[in-house]
């Protein structure tokens, strides 16, 4: 990759610049490498990078119909997720885009019944968006899809098994020896279809309970006996695939919706901060942990109107450096990148007249009795309402539980993952043990085993409230937001 010889450390701005000048395929490779090397970290940066890339993939895609587009996004998504399996936001953004495509394609099917005029409009605007450079990209696609895929029975795609919700046996195997340009229809998961194709079309989501009344895929009824009327009963409801939706009908709309996701990612902190005054009251003592731009924004917004005290927990060894720089107004390195994208300059809380007390981790329990509220940032939120946050957060929420202190978690919807944590242990990433005990202390290092987990899994019952850019939600309500933002067909991205 010739461009990678740049002297500057590759980071998100570097990637965004590369995205403008390079072909799609090297861009995918580049992002996968950056993710693997953790040169793009923090959920928001990963989400931004992923969405920008997917937008580019969408814009350059030259296929016939919506199903091919879904397959393409899925395959790109798999590569990115394989690069950083524990960074859930990458998968989240891929699934968001997939759900968008499905939604737009479904709209196109329904719309084509009612009005024919829409089609022409969409086609026109799509043609406008084309450029010469993009056209050259199209040549890259066939070799890409031809490359030996990750479709073997062994999951080479992610070491985690929590994403897999379906045994391989239930998914039709992918055709071997796929020719360039040929296209395999999306794997259809049988029983899910029965839940989604039903006689009545009440609402796309209202169908689960009526799943019993559908024609099962495994129906052994000899074909040909059905009357035409019954066949149309079978095929109604939600469309199973979108092979009949021409790509040009939906592309412009999908691109526009992806643009909206990017806008959401830019403004998420500000939107969450809008709720600050509802939750932080005068003279309260707020305990927080880790240097998070979301939390800092939230507290700063409240500080404009109210005076309160913030207790910031140090978070040794992984978080302490960035915590100190946040409190004293310097900016931790990963903030720099985020702030390059933000409008407002970073201001420490002390500059806003807030008393900030930094305490060691060991003092959390002792001080908790005086704390009014715990406000935490998170790494990922999972479908059951649990979350993965920086190691040490587990101590804090347990202490809060004992003292009946409310725990509020700030998280953009983009961090909310449709994945159910079947195995908590595999969500945890292990970091450099050298920060706990330096390798130069040979005597100790030789005699001890040193671990440095980066994250804690926190169960939903320890959280009182989530504040997202959509508002405040109880942990038990998160499943609903998951259902609104993702399609259950996309939870498992493996072939």
């Amino acid at each position, binding site marked *: 990759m010739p461009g990678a010889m740049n002297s500057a450390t590759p980071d998100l701005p570097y990637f965004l610049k590369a995205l403008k000048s390079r072909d799609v395929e090297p861009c995918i490779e580049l992002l996968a490498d950056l993710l693997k090397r953790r040169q793009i970290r923090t959920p928001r940066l990963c989400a931004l990078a992923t969405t920008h890339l997917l937008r580019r993939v969408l814009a350059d895609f030259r296929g016939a119909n919506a199903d091919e587009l879904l397959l393409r996004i899925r395959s790109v998504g798999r590569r990115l997720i394989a690069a950083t399996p524990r960074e859930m936001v990458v998968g989240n953004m891929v699934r968001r885009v997939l759900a968008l495509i499905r939604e737009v394609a479904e709209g196109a*099917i329904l719309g*084509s*019944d009612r009005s024919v005029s829409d089609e022409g409009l969409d086609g026109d605007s799509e043609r406008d968006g084309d450029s010469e450079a993009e056209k050259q990209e199209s040549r890259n696609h066939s070799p890409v899809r031809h490359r030996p895929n990750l479709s073997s029975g062994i999951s080479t795609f992610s070491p985690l*098994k*929590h994403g*897999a*919700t*379906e*045994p391989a046996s*239930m998914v039709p195997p992918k055709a071997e020896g796929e020719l360039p340009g040929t296209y395999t229809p999306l794997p259809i998961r*049988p*029983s*899910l279809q*029965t*839940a989604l194709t039903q*006689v*009545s*079309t*009440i*609402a796309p*989501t*209202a169908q*689960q*309970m*009526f*799943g*019993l*009344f*559908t*024609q*099962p895929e*495994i*129906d*052994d*009824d*000899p074909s040909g006996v059905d*009357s035409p*009327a*019954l066949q*149309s*009963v079978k*095929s*109604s*409801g939600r*469309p199973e695939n979108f092979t*009949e939706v021409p790509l040009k009908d939906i592309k412009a709309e999908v691109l526009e919706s992806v643009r909206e996701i990017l806008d959401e990612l830019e403004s998420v902190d500000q939107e969450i901060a809008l709720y600050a005054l509802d939750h932080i009251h005068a003279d309260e003592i707020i305990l927080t942990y880790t240097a998070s731009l979301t939390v800092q924004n939230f507290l700063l917004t409240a500080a404009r109107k109210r005076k309160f005290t913030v207790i910031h927990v140090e978070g040794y060894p992984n978080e302490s450096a960035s915590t100190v720089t946040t409190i004293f107004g310097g900016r931790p390195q990963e903030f720099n990148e985020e702030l390059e994208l933000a409008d407002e300059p970073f201001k420490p809380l002390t500059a806003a007249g807030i008393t900030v007390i930094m305490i060691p981790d060991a003092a959390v329990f002792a001080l908790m009795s005086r704390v009014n509220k715990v406000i935490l940032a998170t790494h990922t939120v999972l*479908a*059951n*309402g649990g979350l993965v946050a920086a190691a040490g957060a587990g101590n804090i929420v347990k202490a809060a539980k004992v003292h009946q202190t409310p725990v509020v978690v700030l998280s953009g919807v983009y961090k909310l993952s449709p994945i*159910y944590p*079947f*195995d908590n242990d595999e969500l945890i990433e292990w970091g450099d043990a050298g920060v706990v005990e330096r390798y130069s202390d040979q005597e100790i290092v030789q005699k001890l085993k040193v671990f440095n987990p980066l994250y804690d899994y926190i169960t939903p019952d320890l959280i009182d409230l989530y504040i997202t850019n959509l508002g405040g939600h109880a942990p*038990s*309500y998160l*499943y*609903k937001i998951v259902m609104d933002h993702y399609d*259950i067909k996309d*939870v498992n991205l493996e072939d």
Partner: protein
Amino acid sequence: MSTETPAEQILTPEAVDDSSFDVVETYRNLLAMDPDLTMPVAAIESLVLGLAAHPTTTISETLDLLRDLSQRLAESTPNPISLSAGTDLFQRYLIMSLRPGNVPLASKKGTKKLPATDDFTTIRAHLLKHGRSFVANAKAARARIASFGRNLMKEGCTVLTTGGSRVVAALLREAAEGGVRFRVVYVLPPPRPGRPQSEGLDLVKDLRERGVPVATVSEGAVGYSLAGGVGGGKVDMVIVGAEGVVENGGIISRLGTCQIGMLAKAAHRPFYVVAESHKFVRMFPLSQGDLGIEQRIVDFRTDEPNPWDMTPDPVDFTSPEYISGIITEAGILTPSAVSEELIKIWF
């Protein structure tokens, strides 16, 4: 075709004699013939057969007939909760399908919309023709739950379960076949009238044959089994089935499930329920007394009671606070998601 069970065979409309149709009899026959059939599905099948036996031409006539048949079914059994989940769902399904604006045939472009009467006859014909596919659908749902739930079974884990749930059995069998090494603590209830052999013994035997170590314990040993340490069962999670899942996310299940839920909560072990979504039932019990069925479980007497006078298949209500997740064919739901599913089809 060759895999038809007896229950599927009698589900051809022609086999039913018009005059002699007895919905209760049909229901019992269906249940007796196919041990894999659940009560709600059997109830739905009976209603379909009832429809076939009574040729109706108008919608309200049909709905009246269904209401009447459902009521007769409910009156015939001491505990109609599970059954009514099926009959309610079926009636609701018909109403929703017939609602104006929900023309089921308007799908692909070019389909001409048919007048309302044709919709009704089409739907009726669809139901009668594919009556037996409901059974297949229900079984497919069970298989799907098993495939979802398998992800819960980690290598080397220990599961505590109870009752004779077919879904739990499917899940454990699937896990055993999938090569997951796990152990099972099976809580066996004492024999009761009409049920000389404890429910679940078949599954225990089956699992043991597949090389899964199973410990059978009495209901009194649940707390002991949930404890860790030497001698304890080191149970990692509890998985139970349910007869009905109620609106607040709680479950109605075999007597003894509630206390297992409480003990699991006390021991901080996850308590999962596996149930198909056709078992969701529209009731909102707050306590054991709200189930609306008569069970003489706590029976104060001054005379000596006859031990064979007990309710044959007693159930209890497990409140949602004890439930970590409900595994349905649509994925893993939190208890609060149940009400939403019900609201979606009822309102």
